[in-house]
């Protein structure tokens, strides 16, 4: 039965991939690889380069993960290892409620508070507005925090209590036990939590759309420059979620360019899932041992 559903899922994925490739063919024919590496997107001039959106997506995602991972995993460690048992369930239930809040609500909160905080807090950097890649990254970090935390907590709970007890019996401190037993044995679950969160980050549209600034062609002068973080930008999803998609529908090349963005998004998400699966398939003993 599971084989049937796996085959069905694979069929739909391939169908989607085929559809996106087919629909985006005109832009690949016109621009080739320059569609991915091109720095300019001017649809009136029929110039389609998606690099700025790929850059925006990567920066926002990375930022969200960098902010959410330590806080989420730290919070999970706190609830699993330190918080008294009677407090764990209420805390976990509250966190899971946060995970269910619709993204548009987060987006509105972003407009209401976060955008202003970023603008006021970083005024010394001469910000033009609070709609920046940084704002989107922070907002996404807040959005995925409950997912990271609750899944990390689940992963930590898969470590048998006897292991922690044995480590404490050997004189390891609580912190050492948390790191060398709990974290070391549940890191694959943590990676899984982060990948799931990354999936949400990459696919998130409306919240990002509301605070990212949606400025086309926002690329840094130097790839190592942090300046673009505090400037407006564009992600693949914010582009696809904007009004340009309606304009594009009447123009085959423009439409192909927009569908091409969806194809890129699909490939990135599939790539991350594939990477995650490879990590997951590694034998537990090997992966744990590799940390020691």
């Amino acid at each position, binding site marked *: 039965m599971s084989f049937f559903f796996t085959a069905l899922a694979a069929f739909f994925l391939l169908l989607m991939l085929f559809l996106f490739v087919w629909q985006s063919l005109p832009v690949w024919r016109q621009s080739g690889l320059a569609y991915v590496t091109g720095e300019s997107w001017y649809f009136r001039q029929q110039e389609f380069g998606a690099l700025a959106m790929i850059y925006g997506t990567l920066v926002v995602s990375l930022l969200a993960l960098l902010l959410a991972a330590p806080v989420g995993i730290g919070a999970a460690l706190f609830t699993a290892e330190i918080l008294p048992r009677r407090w764990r369930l209420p805390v976990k239930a509250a966190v899971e409620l946060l995970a269910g809040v619709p993204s548009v609500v987060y987006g509105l909160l972003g407009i209401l508070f976060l955008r202003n905080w970023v603008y006021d807090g970083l005024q010394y950097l001469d910000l033009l507005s609070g709609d920046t890649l940084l704002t989107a990254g922070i907002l996404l970090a807040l959005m995925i925090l409950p997912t990271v935390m609750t899944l990390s907590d689940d992963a930590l709970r898969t470590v*048998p209590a006897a292991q922690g007890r044995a480590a*404490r*019996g050997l004189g*390891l*401190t609580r912190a050492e036990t948390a790191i*060398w037993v709990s974290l070391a044995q549940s890191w694959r679950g943590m990676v899984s939590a982060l990948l799931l969160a990354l999936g949400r980050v990459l696919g998130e549209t409306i919240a990002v759309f509301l605070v990212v600034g949606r400025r086309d062609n926002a690329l840094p002068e130097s790839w190592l420059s942090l300046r673009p973080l505090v400037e407006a930008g564009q992600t693949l999803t914010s582009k696809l979620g904007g009004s340009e998609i309606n304009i594009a529908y009447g123009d085959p090349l423009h439409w192909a360019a927009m569908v091409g963005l969806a194809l890129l998004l699909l490939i990135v998400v599939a790539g991350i899932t594939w990477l995650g699966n490879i990590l997951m398939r590694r034998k537990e003993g090997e992966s*744990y041992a590799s940390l*020691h």
Partner: protein
Amino acid sequence: MIETKSKGQSDPSETRTCILETRQLKVYAGKQVLLQGIDLGISEGEVFGLIGPSGAGKSTLLRCLNRLIDLDQGLRVEGAVLFHGQSVRGRAMDVDELRVRVGMLFQQPVVFPLSILKNVIFGVRHQRKIARRDRLLVAEKALREAALWQEVKDRLQTPALKLSVGQQQRLCLARTLAMEPEIILMDEPTSALDPKSTQAIDDLIMELKKKRTIVLVTHHLNQARRLCDRVAFISAKSGEGGRIACMGETETVMSRTDLAELSDFVGCEQGVTCCES
């Protein structure tokens, strides 16, 4: 400080210093009493047995001795546990250091999903800095002491989980021994093992008692007879906490007939009689 006589000494009148003792030790789980007023002293170099029926609180008492009981939420401990005369519950006591000096072997072997070598040095490498080249020496010494070296010397990098349960238990003992504890607390270490592995652990305890102090929780009276210098019989009437019904040299305790609970326990073990009460 209590001084006790120990079996197997050349001079029966020779006394040994008590290194671990409890005074009016009580453990509660909410309002329920788990242990009531435990007073005992364990001398250096002896094997001290804790015997008694299931649920009497033997393991609870054992966990009090190195404060592993602290990990059990909802339990309250009163009274004193003294290690070398110093309260283990005092602020001055470093509990992690205490657990290094008072090691523990659990009922079920708990090996980490690591290689045999890494399991042996798991605790010691967190306790002190040891050079990479010295790790093997530390492991070899501990594995030899745990009589496991000959069986694993050619496969130290093999996952420890591939060992038999008996070997895993000896590996856990090696891991504890690598810490060079003064006292080893053993909580029914052979209850999950087959007779051959049990024999191997028993032989090990006989060997270890030459150098270390051992507190052994066991259900098996034959094991207690073979290994223990002294035993404490812990009994618990329903609704009351465990208490020491009698304590002394092993044979003296075992041969007592004036204590109904002990007679019942010994009778059950020997298959002579088994009373409901």
